[in-house]
């Protein structure tokens, strides 16, 4: 390739490195304890182990990135946090996941309520085949919000938080499928924010998006960090470096290491982590 694109890559790497250096290491979890505590969690489908003995914590108001090659269990881990895996009859698990100290796999837990507290954005944006407004109001309506003014307020505030309000404020009655791909993904983010959750789970939210849409999502996440604990699964290691305080590296269903993003990217504890980050495999 020409030296030009090589220069570009080098410049970008330098920018990323500078950004990482300037980033302060995340503060330890506050005394109130972690938002999510995963204790020796294992999961399998039809007896085939997908996650093995995962133990990690997510603090309130931090973005935890999860990186790792395909079929390393990242998505299964994410879907365990709001019990979406339960929908598959083949799923079984052991260990514990505590949110605010409460075991979410306790038999007495209201799963629908749990999923409102722990909102999820999928890899592929899936607007329901309704209007923009109906998409956003669906979650709150499920939770029993009927008041029109309250719904309007939720729709507007969640769209603003997802950096989408200015683009769709005059298109709320249009089919959501008319929006562009990047707008649809921010709509899906806004739809989760309208639930007023406590935790945000994002499963490769930018995998199909152009760089500008990706930047908008990352900007939104940076803003949202002040209000939520965020778990971001990504195949893009640069995104993990840009948009997280801590990073966890999964491989073959095991947690290889977790630590401040700066450390994982500049001075990883394990050889396999550095191999993955520098692109030697995966």
């Amino acid at each position: 390739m020409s030296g030009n694109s090589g220069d570009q890559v080098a410049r970008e790497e330098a920018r990323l490195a500078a950004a990482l250096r300037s980033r302060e290491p995340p503060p330890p979890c506050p005394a109130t304890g972690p938002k999510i505590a995963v204790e020796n969690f294992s999961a399998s489908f039809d007896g085939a182990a997908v996650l093995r003995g995962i133990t990690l914590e997510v603090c309130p108001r931090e973005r935890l990135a999860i990186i790792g090659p395909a079929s390393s269990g990242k998505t299964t881990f994410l879907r365990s946090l709001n019990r979406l895996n339960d929908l598959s009859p083949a799923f079984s698990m052991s260990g514990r996941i505590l949110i605010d100290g409460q075991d979410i796999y306790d038999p007495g837990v209201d799963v629908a309520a749990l999923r409102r507290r722990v909102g999820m954005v999928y890899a592929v944006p899936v607007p329901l085949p309704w209007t923009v407004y109906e998409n956003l109001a669906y979650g709150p309506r499920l939770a029993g919000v009927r008041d029109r003014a309250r719904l309007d307020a939720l729709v507007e505030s969640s769209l603003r938080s997802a950096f989408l309000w200015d683009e769709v404020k005059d298109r709320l009655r249009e089919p959501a499928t008319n929006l562009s791909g990047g707008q649809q993904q921010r709509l899906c983010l806004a739809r989760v924010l309208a639930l007023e959750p406590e935790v945000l789970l994002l499963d490769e939210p930018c995998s199909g998006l152009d760089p500008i849409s990706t930047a908008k999502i990352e900007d939104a996440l940076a803003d949202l960090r002040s209000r939520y604990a965020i778990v971001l699964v990504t195949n893009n290691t640069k995104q993990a470096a840009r948009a997280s305080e801590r990073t966890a590296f999964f491989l073959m269903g095991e947690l290889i290491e977790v630590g401040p993003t700066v450390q994982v990217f500049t001075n990883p504890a394990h050889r396999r982590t550095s191999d993955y980050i520098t692109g030697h495999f995966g």
Partner: protein
Amino acid sequence: MRASPRLTQAASLGLMWGLAAATIGVLAFIIIYILAHGLPHVTWGFLTESPRSMGREGGVLPMIVGTAWVAGLAVVIAAPVGVATAIYLTEYTREGRLTAVIRFGADCLAGIPSIIFGLFGFVFFVITLGMGLSIVSGALTLAVMVLPTIIRTSEEAIRAVPQAYRDVSFGLGSTRWQMVTQVVLRSALPGIGTGIVLSIGRSISETAAVMLTAGSALGLPRTAFDSSRTLALHFYTLSREGISMPNAYATASVLILAILAVNLSAYWLMRRLAAGGR
């Protein structure tokens, strides 16, 4: 020597055109033939009067009312049962022996000749349950008859709803019931509606099954427990017994126009629902 691709293309296109034209042609011929023979006799009086002297004179008002009763009641009974069964099969069970048995049963039911349904209805509803030759007996028999159609078309429509919608709905904190009623059924409605419309058409035009269950009384039915002759059966009787061919064709014309009207209005309604659902 092999035919050139261009020639093959032209020949296959011509063949398909010809077969499609033949299909449309047969349909058009039947409709035009019947309407040409019948429409001249369809007067206002024919639609609003009761038949006199076994249908040789007078109109078909009781048959119109009876047909609407029997077909309407049949679908009102079959639609909820059929759609509920389809929901159960698709959303509430894992594929297994039970679903296979239900599906196989429905398919068998769909292949049974209507005269057998008529016989079953006669033995079970008319005699055993003591409902007599009545609109209710006829409607229940037809309901059993169209049930498989409604189950299968509803099932197809529900299966066609993307799995991702269900994931999204669960992810937003819905219960299964909320997911089914607010996401799946809403998206599947046009498909489910199509199955129901087909069933209405089939109920309106059914002859053998209603002959044995709803009877062939000529009077205007007062209650659902009265016997009533449907349009299709009236046409059959008029032509079979050579009572009046002009009135037979006129009755057939009314029948065809009624089915056409049901299909068109249902089509229009479905399009509106589908548009509103977006």
